[in-house]
């Protein structure tokens, strides 16, 4: 399974990510997800979210998640970009892509990856008014 993990303070460049997609002939499903900062957090209007990461543990925990994904689903490729630092409303903070032979496993793996990230990957957010 190809894996690409990027933790960055730079804006997520969707067009560049899509341009670098690689698929072998047996792949029939590409699921990708974009997480975007909402303009409201716990009922209050905000302008941005400041993301903080415990970087070395973030990378390790993502790779543990990828290890499990590789065993559970026939994934050819997973790519994930998580932005840290200040991310303004309507800007993406997360981009995930999973490539598999069929759609069922691609949706399931992508959903599971995001659920696991929200459970174990040490990233925190602080709303900015």
């Amino acid at each position, binding site marked *: 399974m190809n894996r690409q993990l990027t933790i960055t303070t730079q804006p997520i460049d969707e067009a560049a990510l899509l341009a670098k997609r690689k698929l072998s002939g047996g792949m029939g499903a590409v699921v990708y997800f974009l*997480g975007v900062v909402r303009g409201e957090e716990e009922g209050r209007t905000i302008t941005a979210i400041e*993301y*903080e990461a*415990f970087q*070395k*543990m973030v*990378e*390790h*925990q993502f790779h543990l998640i990828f290890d499990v994904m590789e065993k559970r689903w026939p994934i050819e490729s997973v790519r994930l970009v*998580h932005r840290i630092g200040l991310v303004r409303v309507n800007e993406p*903070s*997360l981009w995930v892509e999973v490539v598999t032979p069929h759609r069922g496993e691609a949706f399931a793996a992508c959903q599971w990856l*995001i659920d696991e*990230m*929200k*459970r*174990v*990957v*040490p*990233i*925190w*957010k*602080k709303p900015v008014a």
Partner: protein
Amino acid sequence: MRVTVCFHSYFKDLAGCAETTETLAEGVTLGRLHEKLAERFPKVGAMKNSTLLAVGVDYQPRDYVLKDGDEVSLFPPVQGG
């Protein structure tokens, strides 16, 4: 033995510092260290039930026996995405 303790996210504010060191007897567990830290940093102690504990880059159970030079991290529930 000595271990380094790191606070992340708003636990830094609750503790009033990002990092500290603790001198411990051999055989002390992560859970016992957490109890000591809760006494020393009461605002962090108040979050005890929701605190996540890691040693290095891995989560560890409370009965994990600490080793000299371990880097222990305390932080609140994670919120990525």
